[in-house]
């Protein structure tokens, strides 16, 4: 019975073939084997959300997902969110609203919110938004600025990246 697994997966759009131990978590594969250290170790048991990545477009806690689960599936991490030099709209909004302090939870929060933003048909009410964020522990911000960033992007109707000139520039410090 195999102690090592051969994976064929796609990571941030690039196909990869990897040999990993069977007990490798997806998070450790990303961080240790591939050097993608944007996804974070927090609690390491699925409580805090700092390790959230997208597996076939859906948020997954990579610390309690086996690397083997990525076989035949597409993984997206925080490193793959910017495209063509432009941040993802939720990254831009978090930047404008100063929705990060120490920043440790921020990659996980971006990965949890991005699917809501990327699905233009999905209406997201405030209750759902709060519930989604309930999966990601932030001990700095008190969530107020994260929520205002998410609300702005989701209510804007314009969920395209680079939506405003100078969108990557910080605003006057956020007014939330």
């Amino acid at each position: 019975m195999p102690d090592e697994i051969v994976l064929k997966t796609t990571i941030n759009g690039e196909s990869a073939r990897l040999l990993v131990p069977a007990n490798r978590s997806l998070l450790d594969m990303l961080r240790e084997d591939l050097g993608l250290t944007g996804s974070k170790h927090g609690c390491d048991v699925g409580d805090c959300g700092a390790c959230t990545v997208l597996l076939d477009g859906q948020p997954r806690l990579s610390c309690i997902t086996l690397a083997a689960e990525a076989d035949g599936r597409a993984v997206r991490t925080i490193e793959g969110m910017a495209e063509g030099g432009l941040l993802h709209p939720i990254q831009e909004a978090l930047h404008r609203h100063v929705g990060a302090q120490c920043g440790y939870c921020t990659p996980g929060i971006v990965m949890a919110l991005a699917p809501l933003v990327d699905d233009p048909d999905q209406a997201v009410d405030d209750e759902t938004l709060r519930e989604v964020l309930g999966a990601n522990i932030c001990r700095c911000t008190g969530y107020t600025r994260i929520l205002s960033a998410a609300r702005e992007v989701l209510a804007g109707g314009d969920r395209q990246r680079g939506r405003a000139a100078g969108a990557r520039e910080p605003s006057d410090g956020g007014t939330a």
Partner: protein
Amino acid sequence: MLPLPSFSLLAPDRLDDVLAPLGQPGVRLLAGGTDLLPSMKHRLFKPATLLSLSRVPELARIEPTEDGGLRIGAMATLLGVRQDARVRAGWPALASACATVATRTIQAMGTLGGNVMLDTRCLYYNQPAGWRASIGGCLKAEGSVCHVAPRGTGCYAAQSSDTVPSLMLYEAELELLSRRGSRRLALSELFSADGRDGPRIERDELLRAVILPPPGAVVLHRKVRPRGAIDYGMLLVAVRRQGDGGSAVISALGPAPVSVRVEQLGDLAQAAWKASNPLSTHSWSSTWRKHMVRIEVARAVAELTTPRLAIAHG
């Protein structure tokens, strides 16, 4: 960083290839992994082989039964069950119970089968290995003394599945499959009196599906937990109205859920309180948790009998 212990992994895509190794020594099933993998990181389980069910699509199907009920594949995710229009219409307490599990991300990973088969939980058991070692180990994991009841011989780790209380009141059955064949087991027969003993099915049996009888039962589910997300319940209550009387299932207080039935619905809260004997398996006081049994059952009864109160209790 909490590394996983070493194991071999099998991830077959055919049901037959799941059943073949099932029951062999050291083989353990992996469903969503949201409880098993943290527990393995805490060295509560060290299986030689993990047998993943995630590549068998037929196990995730939700489909109507011939009699108007619903057959929910064991690998259907909790989020999928919660969002299923048929579940929401016919068995709404199950949908609302799924919505109370941990977080939405966990619900998208965790499965109904995994939730039903959830390992019993305790303050002294669900801890990192070093934490347990510092108190001489826990009876269920590796020790010789139970820190909940040091003079006793039993384990009191609590059945803590969020979906079990409402599923029991909907009179759900489990479809079990092995190489020897298929059988049905009433969910209420699944639980052991001792927290170490695990679900009462054979080692070579797979929980294939949860079967719900046709809709009609009026059930309500309530969960008490420290925070509004992430946490397991320190008290789980489901209540069903049956004519003038009703039933309650109380869980998260001991190894098996407790069922009570009364002829007059007004007596249900007191009966549930009498039948509940929580021990200190949770960091919150067992006296308070017992006190809350009466309050939570009374609230559920009030919601069932006075629909307007449902708004008041949110």
